[in-house]
């Protein structure tokens, strides 16, 4: 499966994402410059927006990249059902581009948080969680200043009801509490999907936890998020 990794000016996790994807047999990552226009012309099985500081976070994290040429193609592909993943700044771009609901506001502590976290898998009906189990706890690192997910209360209830919360911060035992919430994000939300489930954004970095050597906790949970793409593809073929 060919997977496009979009590089914006200021992306800095693009090569990490490429390296993580290359470790997964069956995935062929392709780095795509956001202005090169090739995204619609090739047969990509998925698109990934990596982390970083696109356009130096000017105006607001993700707000300028959300209007870049690649994003109109990403919107078209997402509308046709192509799996799209946004990690950290990629999540912010998807939110600012209207592909995912809500807003990612400054962390309540006003601090840039760089740490290892635990997240619980809340929904396995997405192409990035299909290889995981509901309730499974993953150890993934975060590194961001604007990751406080916000939605107005009525919309937040609908998001929860529709099963669009994909990952939630928790402790190592899988329990979510204010103590396991690193940024003040509502309902401990670390990642969400669109209603159809093919577009997913999350603040933690799976590509930084894709190999045992990279993890202070000694596992490679991030790889499971990325390799889920192949589980979904296999399911489609069999279905």
């Amino acid at each position: 499966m060919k997977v496009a990794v979009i590089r914006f000016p200021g992306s800095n996790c693009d090569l990490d994402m490429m390296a993580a994807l290359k470790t997964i047999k069956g995935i062929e990552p392709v780095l795509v410059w956001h202005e090169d226009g090739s995204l619609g012309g090739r047969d990509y099985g998925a698109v990934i927006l990596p982390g970083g500081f696109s356009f130096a976070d000017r105006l607001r994290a993700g707000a300028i990249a959300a209007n870049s040429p690649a994003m109109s193609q990403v919107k078209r592909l997402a509308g046709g059902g192509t799996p799209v993943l946004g990690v950290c700044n990629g999540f912010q771009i998807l939110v600012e581009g209207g592909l995912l609901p809500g807003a990612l506001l400054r962390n309540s502590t006003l601090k840039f948080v760089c740490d290892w976290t635990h997240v619980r898998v809340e929904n396995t009906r997405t192409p990035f969680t299909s290889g995981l189990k509901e309730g499974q706890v993953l150890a993934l690192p975060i590194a961001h200043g604007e990751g406080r997910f916000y939605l107005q209360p009525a919309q937040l209830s609908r998001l929860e009801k529709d099963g669009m919360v994909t990952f939630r911060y928790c402790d190592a035992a899988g329990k979510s509490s204010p103590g396991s919430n690193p940024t003040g994000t509502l309902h401990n939300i670390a990642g969400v999907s669109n209603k159809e489930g093919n577009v997913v954004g999350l603040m933690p970095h799976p590509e930084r936890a894709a190999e045992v050597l990279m993890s202070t906790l000694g596992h490679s949970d991030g790889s499971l998020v990325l390799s889920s793409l192949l589980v979904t593809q296999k399911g489609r073929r069999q279905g």
Partner: protein
Amino acid sequence: MALLTTKGRTFEVSVVISNKAGVREPEGETILHDLVAKSGFEQVGSIRAGKYLRVTVIAADAQSAKRLVERMCNELRIFNPAAHSCEVSIGREPGQ
């Protein structure tokens, strides 16, 4: 810098983007609790920080200038409607 080639008068339009009521705004809270309230300004009840854009526009009249900036803010998502309010107002004409 964009070239302003449109004919008309020049107007200065202000855009203030801030978190909606009910959305926590930690920067304003920090300014209030860690600076203002500790410095003898106990009368100050709340502070909300935001983002300010001063936009120069060439238009036929002030209302047209304001409408153009409102359309720009909405179409380009200069603010995120899920969390922000966006107030657009006409300032002075430069040079006045």
